[in-house]
């Protein structure tokens, strides 16, 4: 093997190692400075289902799609006063301008008619949803973050 070629292979190996080192540093730094709004959040839910009072909990997870959009999936697990379970999941996508878009799924179908609102705080790149409310036919829910 010619010396020039050995040098070329060495260069390629050095570039690969350099990329790994940079990645390791970036990973370490992001672990040392975690985003306070990029985590799992729990909520207390109250409301009304088919005229009966309802209560339960909800959780929120961040979905990774595009860095410029913030995708949150909410899963509500509640029961009305007669013990009927009410499970609902919905997605809120905040675009680059911060406007939320709601997508509510029920039994594999998207609900067309509803009214949804969120309250949130936003610092840095992410935002944290501290509460939300949903209103569709026969269902009214409002949720607040569980304070530790």
């Amino acid at each position, binding site marked *: 093997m010619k010396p020039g*070629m050995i040098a070329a*292979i060495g260069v390629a190996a050095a*570039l*690969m190692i350099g990329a790994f080192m940079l990645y390791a540093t970036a990973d370490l*730094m992001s672990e040392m400075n975690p985003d306070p709004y990029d985590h799992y959040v729990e909520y207390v839910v109250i409301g009304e289902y088919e005229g009966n009072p309802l209560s339960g909990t909800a959780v929120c997870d961040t979905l990774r799609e595009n*860095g410029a959009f913030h*995708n949150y999936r909410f899963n509500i697990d509640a029961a009305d006063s007669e013990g009927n379970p009410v499970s609902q999941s919905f997605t809120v996508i905040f675009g*680059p301008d911060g406007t939320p878009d709601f997508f509510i799924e029920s039994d594999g179908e998207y609900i067309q008619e509803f009214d949804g609102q969120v309250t949130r705080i936003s610092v840095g790149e992410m935002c944290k949803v501290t509460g939300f409310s949903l209103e569709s036919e026969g269902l009214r829910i409002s949720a607040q973050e569980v304070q530790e």
Partner: protein
Amino acid sequence: MNIGNLLSEIKGRASLSKTLVMEEGESDEEFVFREYKVARRSKVLFIAGFVALFMVLLGYKITLGEYDIGFVEVYETLWKHITGTIDPNSKIELMNDNVVWDQRLPRVLTAIVVGVGLAAAGAAMQSMMKNPLADPYTTGISSGALFGATLAMTLGLYIVSGYYGRVLNAFVFALVPALFIITLSKWKKPSPAMMILVGIAIMYIFNAFQSYMMLRADPNAAASVYTWSVGSIGMTTWEQIPIIGIISLLGFAALFIMTRTLNALNSGDAYAKSLGINVDRVRIVCLIIISVIAAGIVSFTGIIGFIGLVSPHIARIFVGSDNRILLPASALLGACMMLICDIVSFLIIGATLQIGIVTAMIGGPIFMLILIAQQKEVW
């Protein structure tokens, strides 16, 4: 069979003309013409094959993510968006449109234009410098651009203020290693390996300055600069795509116009001069175009290595060294490689793994295999 033999065999199969034998009663002219037709057909097949692969990769990449969207649904949604037939009353169509068009497509388009730009820059640089190791990454041009952008991001030192000040900073500092390499090649006539080692040295000098700036920067800013500098395409939005697209595609077009001149340069300076080409001026113009491409890409995505290095080498195995075909073939291959690396990065960890690390992980070993398989005189 060792890897070198395997690659040689692939190369042999790709160059079908080498296996042709003269038929009985066939004249030399007929044989040469048949050989030319077979070679041309293999090039067309290569391009057609990669166009098909590109379409499959594009659709498949858009299916990957947190939301479950099928391959056919992806193209259906794209078609409906382009033709303006998304039903505003259908939540599922609106949701798919948001995810496919607004969130996933910018990332995929960024991967494509970055792949096209870097691969075309690499192919042109290798022909221009007659150096198989040349690309914006190994010659320090990308590091210069990264340094310029970091200067703007951490210390707020801009040549002109505003968001695009970062791009201009990147461009100006990308020219520093480019001009240094031009000066060196005129002054000392270095060997190809030496030229690259100089490029690597420039890269380390810029990296040292960059590390110093990071130490002085705010920890959050330093963390985001580190994450960005590894090479990330996940933050681009529709507002940025036209800019990065124009830089990359216009750069590609400008280099494509110069392919005949690059072919002459590839045959040696004396030959190019005998054709009346002003070799020095062509090199400077070419390096400026490459610096603009590298600066534009680096300032938006950080450093993405090996695409500009590996794509032209693989394309050259199939289509030969004629830059009129090599340049578009490399660009197509670069786009495919970026999509493959992005798919692999998603399948390994998810959307959070920076693509720069995957291009190094995949491109590095491929490059080494090509080096071992092609024991060229230039080494």
